[in-house]
């Protein structure tokens, strides 16, 4: 018996492994999978007055001959999860989730509320949390079906667009779905996502969509978006311009740093936002001898400060009166100083609080000379 000990052990092990594998689903070959790369979220008004969810999913099929085929399948059902079954009925392959790079939520869902959408994504451990999330105009299906020459899928194009947006216009890096979870679910924070539009020229970012809790509050044009991004984020970079007429103008590419102080007087909160710009003059015909005279440089800095300040105040007024949402995430700072879970509605409080902006502009470099 001792002799065969190892033998018996191996036999038992084999039986065990066979038992473990028996009856389990086999994984499919990659050629037999539909690999999701982008998911869209839309609502469709039903005849009876209710709504239905419409989820187009752009997936790639890797064929044996080396050609990748991109398909869009749309599932329509009364809940988000039910669309899966609807979609599978139209498909000849197994659906594979986990490598998607883009989540396109359209205005319809935004107005209806994004909680359901986000809950479905958050619950599922298989989804890719690194995918970007954007808000789009019209139906999300159009964007996924849009053909861009040179790209397998429009998802690659839009993802690249969002990834590279931060180099200008003070856009942020945190438009991934995992940041969306944090922005919607935390006290004193608010959701703001890039807004994309499809027109005859193609897909482009045309602004930001801001949310009040989980509902779309407003869509900002690109100028307002820039101002909001400056005021909202701790750091960003972008181009700022003072323009006299079409010949005289000066452009300034700057990095911005934000610091916020919060004070409470009675029931009223008071915020002081310090913005520090530090950057280079990119072109200048307006201020003569900017690179040689200190006074000119200081004058430019003063003018720029005034201009930015005016724009910031303009935006803050708009935010307080029109949007009525805390899209600068000031509640977050107040919460960090005066305690959490006090039951305060920060959208309300920020709309009624006193917000002051101090801007400091500094010219670091002027390039290699002045023409």
């Amino acid at each position, binding site marked *: 018996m001792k002799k065969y000990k190892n033998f018996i052990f191996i036999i038992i092990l084999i039986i065990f492994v066979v038992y473990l594998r028996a009856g389990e689903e086999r994984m499919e070959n990659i050629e037999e999978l539909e690999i999701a790369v982008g998911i869209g979220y839309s609502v469709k008004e039903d005849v009876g007055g209710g709504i239905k969810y419409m989820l187009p999913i752009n997936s790639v099929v890797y064929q044996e001959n080396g050609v990748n085929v991109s398909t869009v399948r749309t599932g329509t059902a009364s809940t988000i999860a039910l669309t899966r079954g609807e979609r599978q009925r139209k498909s000849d392959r197994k659906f594979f989730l986990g490598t998607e790079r883009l989540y396109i939520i359209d205005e319809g869902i935004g107005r209806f509320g994004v909680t359901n959408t986000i809950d479905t994504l958050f619950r599922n451990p298989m989804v*890719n949390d690194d995918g970007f999330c954007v808000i789009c105009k019209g139906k999300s299906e159009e964007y996924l079906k849009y053909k861009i020459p040179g790209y397998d899928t429009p998802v690659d194009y839009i993802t690249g667009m969002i990834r590279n947006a931060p180099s200008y216009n003070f856009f942020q890096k945190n438009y991934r779905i995992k940041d969306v979870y944090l922005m919607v679910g935390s006290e004193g924070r608010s959701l703001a996502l890039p807004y994309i539009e499809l027109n005859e020229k193609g897909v482009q970012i045309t602004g930001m969509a801001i949310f009040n809790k989980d509902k779309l509050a407003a869509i900002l044009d690109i100028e307002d978006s820039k101002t909001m991004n400056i005021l909202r984020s701790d750091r960003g970079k972008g181009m700022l311009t003072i323009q006299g007429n079409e010949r005289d103008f000066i452009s300034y590419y700057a990095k911005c740093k934000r610091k916020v102080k919060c004070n409470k007087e009675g029931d009223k909160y008071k915020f002081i936002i310090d913005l520090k710009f530090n950057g280079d003059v990119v072109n200048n015909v307006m201020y003569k001898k900017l690179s040689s005279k200190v006074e000119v440089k200081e004058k430019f800095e003063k003018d720029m400060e005034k201009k930015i300040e005016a724009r910031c105040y303009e935006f803050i007024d708009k935010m307080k009166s029109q949007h009525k949402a805390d899209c600068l995430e000031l509640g977050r700072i107040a919460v960090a100083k*005066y305690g959490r879970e006090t039951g305060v509605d920060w959208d309300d409080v920020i709309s009624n609080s006193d917000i002051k902006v101090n801007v400091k502009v500094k010219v670091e470099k002027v390039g290699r000379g002045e023409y």
Partner: protein
Amino acid sequence: MNDRKGLITANELTCLLIGILIDINITMTPNSVVAISKQDGWISMALGAVYPLYVALIAIYVSRKFPNDNILVLSKRYFGSFIGNVLNFLFFISFFSYFPPAYFNATLILRTYIIPFMSPFKVYLVITLIGAYTAYKGLKVLARIGIISFFLLIVIMLVSLAILFYGSILNVMPIFGVGAKDIIYGSKNTIYDYALFEWIFLLYPFINDKNKIKDSAFKAIAFCCFVYTWVVFIAIYYLGIDMIKKTIWGFFSATESIRVDVITSFRYVFVFIWVLIALKSISYSYYICIDILRNINKNLNKKLNSIFVFIIMGSIVIFITKVYYPNRLVKDEIVNFTTKASTIYNLFFITLIAVIIIIKKDDKCEKI
């Protein structure tokens, strides 16, 4: 004993003690402390170390008086065979109560994150085989596994440093904002994590250098306290308290923030490391339970050496886990009760032994 001769070194003792404290349950720790202490949860977590510290102090005292007798022998010596064995058996039950939850946690995490297609029973079987076989190999092997998982833990800690880039210090502020009362009250939720340090009462006879027990115990507690505090802190730092409440495994969700460009899903690497740590805890539990049973009856000692005892123990644990711990909510309710009961009993038991040793000081001198 399997390995009377194979004594363990001071470093191995440290790793064994760290191993018994740190389980895969650490990934849920942020959720349990944040419920009461909110953003100051990490302070509560650090305060919770008082419990193992107390156990360590008593263990150091007892081990000085009786360096070669573990607590089970002592209880039989002072209370007689019958009462001593009853106390020892209750001690066994209190260790055993942490056993099914460990199975359940490891399986649930595995089935949620990597192998949703496997049935729980199959996962239990694999865990049992690995855990029981490791425990059967004896203390020396467990100690080496402890060392490996110590380094795995350090890897996890280093990786989680990267979260510092993504979160915000605003989430942790205001520090001391919830008040001292809630911070101290919140630390009661850390008992489950700091429990089972009582194992030191069974381990000290095996250490080769008796003077280093103190060092090892304190090192282990300091390390665990640091790891726990860091895990809770970093989870709050990245997720914030509102978000932690929405998750089940707060620390896992926090590590999702780390983006490694080459690996699409860093989570698989991470869960894999955690599974090894969970398996280690389970094999420790096997060893402890069988060890206490051996001590209760010396006659059974020889019979209990076989691998079949471990298999029987495994079957019992699988049965209990399957029947009494069907889902997470029920498990939480049972664990709430068993943790309290076993902690109170353990503290009572070790204090009782220590008090008796103090009282009967003179007796002992006569005996020697």
